[in-house]
């Protein structure tokens, strides 16, 4: 009986596919998310838009918050640690969360190294802007990838860019000859064995969700149409006027992303979405997606 194997870690992400993972900051929000049909929740102290507003150093949530959320719902509970913060990850594993997100939304703890995720029994999800970054994280042991987008903005443009970039690179690799893959791996800064695997299979070796900027059911459906296998929604739900209705609508949009009739029905009368930010107004140091390497 083996625990913590890559099959078991990546297999859990397979079970989340076609689902929506919602950011929540307390037990009540977690219950709302579960009732809306979320396939998992991400336990946080502050949602990304509040992290932006408050500033300062963003860290792992207080274990007490995470534990109260784990007690409130039966769906999987994820939690974020800072990039490279091995001790936060160990604490999250000790709490018993179902997935750790080594996340650029929190302030990075290590400017050079991400966590060696192979050493953990708990599976990790990591953000990526392009295929090279995704494969570096998988090489370090990530069992699930999410394209980064730009968290806490309610603006889908970066998420679209990142998903399109990853999908285009996969297509390109698929068309290359074996001798070209070595040079390609060097250019991408990705492990050659993973580059070869992607070239052969035409897909990422692990499940790939979209994140960072989803605010409406249509945004969620768009990410699925572009090739994501599920969606993380952060501030988009609980920073909107009617989180219950919006949460349900986003879940349904992900299931029925190819059915415009259902999309129309679930998009109607949801109240105000979160306000949103034009990315051109952000200063370079306010951009979260460039954290991590």
């Amino acid at each position, binding site marked *: *009986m*083996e*625990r*913590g*194997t890559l*099959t*078991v870690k990546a*297999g*859990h992400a*397979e*079970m*989340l*596919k*076609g*689902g929506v993972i919602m950011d929540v900051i307390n037990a009540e929000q977690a219950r709302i998310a*579960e009732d809306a*049909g*979320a*396939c*998992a929740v991400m336990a946080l102290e502050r949602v990304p838009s509040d992290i932006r507003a408050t500033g300062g150093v963003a860290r792992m949530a207080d274990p007490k918050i995470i534990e109260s959320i784990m007690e409130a719902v*039966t*769906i*999987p509970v994820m939690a974020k640690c800072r990039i490279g913060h091995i001790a936060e990850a160990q604490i999250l*594993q000790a709490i*018993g*969360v*179902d*997935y750790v997100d080594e996340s650029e939304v929190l302030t990075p703890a290590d400017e050079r190294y991400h966590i060696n995720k192979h050493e953990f*029994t*708990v*599976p990790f999800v990591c953000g990526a802007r392009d295929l090279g970054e995704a494969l570096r994280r998988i090489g370090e042991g990530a069992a699930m990838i999410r394209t980064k987008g730009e968290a806490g903005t309610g603006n889908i443009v970066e998420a679209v860019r990142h998903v399109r970039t990853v999908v285009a690179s996969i297509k390109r690799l698929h068309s290359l000859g074996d001798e070209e893959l070595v040079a390609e791996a060097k250019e991408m800064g990705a492990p050659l064995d993973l580059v070869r695997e992607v070239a052969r299979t035409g897909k990422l070796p692990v499940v790939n969700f979209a994140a960072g900027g989803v605010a409406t059911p249509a945004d969620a459906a768009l990410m699925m149409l572009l090739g994501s296998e599920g969606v993380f929604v952060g501030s988009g739900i609980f920073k909107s006027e009617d989180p219950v209705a919006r949460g349900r609508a986003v*879940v*349904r949009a992900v*299931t*029925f992303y190819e*059915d415009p009739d259902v999309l129309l029905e679930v998009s109607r009368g949801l109240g105000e979405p979160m306000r949103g930010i034009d990315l051109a107004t952000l200063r370079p140091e306010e951009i979260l997606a460039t954290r991590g390497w």
Partner: protein
Amino acid sequence: MRIGVVALQGAFREHAQALQRLGAEPIEVRLPRDLDGLDGIVVPGGESTTIRQLMTEYGLLGPLASLVASGLPVLATCAGMIVSAQRVDGEPLPGLGGLDIDVSRNAFGRQVDSFETDLPVPAIGDHPFHAVFIRAPVVKSAEPQVRVLATLPDGRIVAVQQGNVIGIAFHPELTVDDRIHRYFLRLVTERAQVPSAAHSN
């Protein structure tokens, strides 16, 4: 053979691929209209809360439960087994019926307790099946009409069959061994050969 795969959430694509490899025609099922002319159905792993909720809301639960009651062969894995069970942790929840069992959700603990192991499943052959358990349920109790297909060394029941309904706590769609899908497709073929039972709708 047209085999429906409930495609609301979870690992439905892997089941469809396994069925295709074995020569069946997988049909993604999201709405009641997708149920026409099916010879069998797979209810995949995923989040049972999410799947049950979407099945109820989009009107799939009632019609599918009737098909199951009329003998439609079912392969229900993990979350699928939970929504096919009579009871979940002692509570009767709205589901597909088909399995007179009481299942316990997340019976092994959380994700860090998920595991893989070689499991004897005599009904599909002598070699053990490499079984992947992810936040898996177990069958806490089963009525006498339920046949036990596999138990762990500690005696906990992790695979059952009742008539044409197979319930599996692990994930045969995540490994290359296709014996469980073959076993299911044999039920489908056998049912098609009994003229009165097949396609009575």
